[in-house]
């Protein structure tokens, strides 16, 4: 069956929103499809994209933006396009949204200078920049995924507790409402440096402050997104062929060791 499968990855505003290597997530998903022999298309969803384009995608990727770019995006993401994106995420299209992207899917973002930028209100949280002189949240970030369903599915997939490793680099502080956090901070600051939460999880959408980018070094997260997208599209159980993730495992081990964080090593995927 596999050779017939196709996947379309929608990449939100690739030129405006890919500030800290976030395109690595799109590259990672694309290559993991190609290495397994699936046909994959990465569709840039920039200012020229339409609501029709948005409705075609099976998986979504969105990265960070500078404040001014974020404003341009928010001005563009209105009306039919905003509606299409809302439907997609509400109906469970999987996606990974880093740093600035979750802010535009949430209630609002208040930048260091200038006006509050309203978001789509899908994620129940708000983000506020504490001002131009406030310290940025910067450094290596390790979290344990705690969002209930995601944690269960990932644990079943890898056979151990899922730890995500990345790098955070953000000025804004996020306060969650009723939405479930993605995980709990083991190392680093996370959403706001106060409540120990990191990111958010809504339907199948993952919001995180973890750059790195997050997927190449946490390949089980990439595979969970791909598997979920394929299962939704083809309405049948999908078992992804294993890939050689030795380099990713070595990269994780090296950083865990340096940070003196003791976590179980991800076992071979089944």
């Amino acid at each position, binding site marked *: 069956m596999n050779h017939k499968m196709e996947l379309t990855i929608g990449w939100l505003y690739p030129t405006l929103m890919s500030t800290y*290597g976030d395109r690595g997530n799109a590259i*990672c998903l694309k290559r993991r499809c*190609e290495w397994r022999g699936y046909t994959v298309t990465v569709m840039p969803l920039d200012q020229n994209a339409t609501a029709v384009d948005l409705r075609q995608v099976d998986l979504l990727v969105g990265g960070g933006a500078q404040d001014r770019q974020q404003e341009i995006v928010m001005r563009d993401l209105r009306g039919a396009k905003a509606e299409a994106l809302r439907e997609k995420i509400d109906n469970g299209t999987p996606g990974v949204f880093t740093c600035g992207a979750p802010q535009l899917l949430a209630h609002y973002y208040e930048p260091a200078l200038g006006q509050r930028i309203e978001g789509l209100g899908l994620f129940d949280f708000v983000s506020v920049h504490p001002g131009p002189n406030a310290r940025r949240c910067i450094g290596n970030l390790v979290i344990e995924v705690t969002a209930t369903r995601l944690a269960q599915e990932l644990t079943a997939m890898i056979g151990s507790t899922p730890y995500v490793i990345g*790098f955070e*680099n953000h000025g804004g502080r996020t306060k969650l409402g009723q939405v479930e956090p993605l995980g709990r901070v083991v190392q680093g600051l996370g959403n706001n440096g106060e409540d120990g939460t990191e990111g958010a999880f809504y339907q199948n959408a993952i919001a995180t402050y973890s*750059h790195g980018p997050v997927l*190449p*070094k946490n390949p089980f997260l990439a595979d969970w997104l791909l598997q979920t997208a394929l299962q939704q599209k083809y309405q049948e159980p999908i078992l992804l062929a294993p890939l050689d993730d030795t380099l990713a495992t070595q990269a994780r081990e090296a950083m865990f060791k340096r940070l003196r964080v003791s976590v179980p090593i991800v076992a071979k995927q089944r």
Partner: protein
Amino acid sequence: MSKTIQLIDRLRLGLAVLTAKTVTFIVRSLRLGAASVLPGEIARRIHPQLLHLLSCQVKQGIILIAGTNGKTTTSLLLCTMLERQGWRVAHNATGANLENGLITALLENTNPIGQLNADYAILEVDENVVPKVLQPIQPRIILCLNLFRDQLDRYGEVDTISQRWAKAIAPLPLETIVIPNADDPTLSSMGQQLRQRVLFFGLREPKQYLDEIPHAVDSIYCPSCGHSLEYQGVYLSHLGDFHCPSCGFHKGQLAIDSREWPQILIGLYNKYNTLAAVLAAQQLGVDDVTIRDTIANFQAAFGRAEELEVKGKHVRILLSKNPVGMNETIRAVNQAGGQTTLLVLNDRIPDGTDVSWIWDVDTEKLVERGGTLVVSGDRVYDMALRLRYSQQDDNNGLQLIVKEDLQAAIATALEHTPANETLHILPTYSAMLEVREVLTGRKIL
């Protein structure tokens, strides 16, 4: 320019200078380092206005050089031009470009009673420090080379940097000469708003346009109205021939014709560095013959396209510390046709602790050629992973070798370099220092 200094200041200045010189002497005698920062730091504590008191003694004025890429090379080139013209020049040649580094460089040219002897000072200054030092330094010329995404973990975002520069330049005397890169939209816009004397440099060479806009682009939106800029062509990253279809903003009027000038070293970025230095040198009265002569005989700075012979093999070190710089070094490596490349990625403070930027580099262009890629550094596996994900086809003959240990990596890379070829080494900043130490200290030989 020279100004009278009050007696009490003169005494404190003398004390500060004497202390700094003692510190330099001790640091160097005990071989603790190059003493390019510490003396400045200590002297500044003794006299907080030290930077200003030293700066105002420079006879003909100070040239300040700022920008993300090319500061060191441009400074060295301009310095050489001025020296060949017979001037005495103070220069922070080691690249220590924070306030203490600038003070240390000036102190090097100061006698024990605090009298500075230099016709010119060329100071390369860190992007973030520019607003802080403009008032005390009162530069005669400000060179603004470019603004790219670099070390965002320290600086935040590029838009805010140019705004802070513009604000800090605004109160300077109107005869201050500002030399911005016209091909950089943000700097073009800044230059067009200044009341000072502005001279733009840039390219007029459509033959050098890239086929497509690379991914690692920071600013393709109009700095005045936010509309997408239209490019007739892109030279590198977001540098090119542009205009805004909405508000009419366009590239600044060039004060130099790039087609009339040769360039130093390899790579288009060095053409920009050359043009900036030429324009500044002309303003300071250096004659064109001396300028051309300096370009023709220019030797690379430390690790910037620096060439070495090791074990009978040719090695070229190309500092690669941000997406734009690394894309350009990859272009240069591919043009040179080398089959073996060593990449060394560190994440220490001088490199920037965030290595996410490697995903903005088009490493695909290095990988798709095949050959041997050796990887090392503190973040060796992150770099290896980036290269692995650059590989669409497993069978393009690429050999990826991962060596945690830098000496082993260099030895392996040399072994894989045929006798008549060049080994290209692409290190981040601290990695470059280590690589040079291994290669010139003959640690592995």
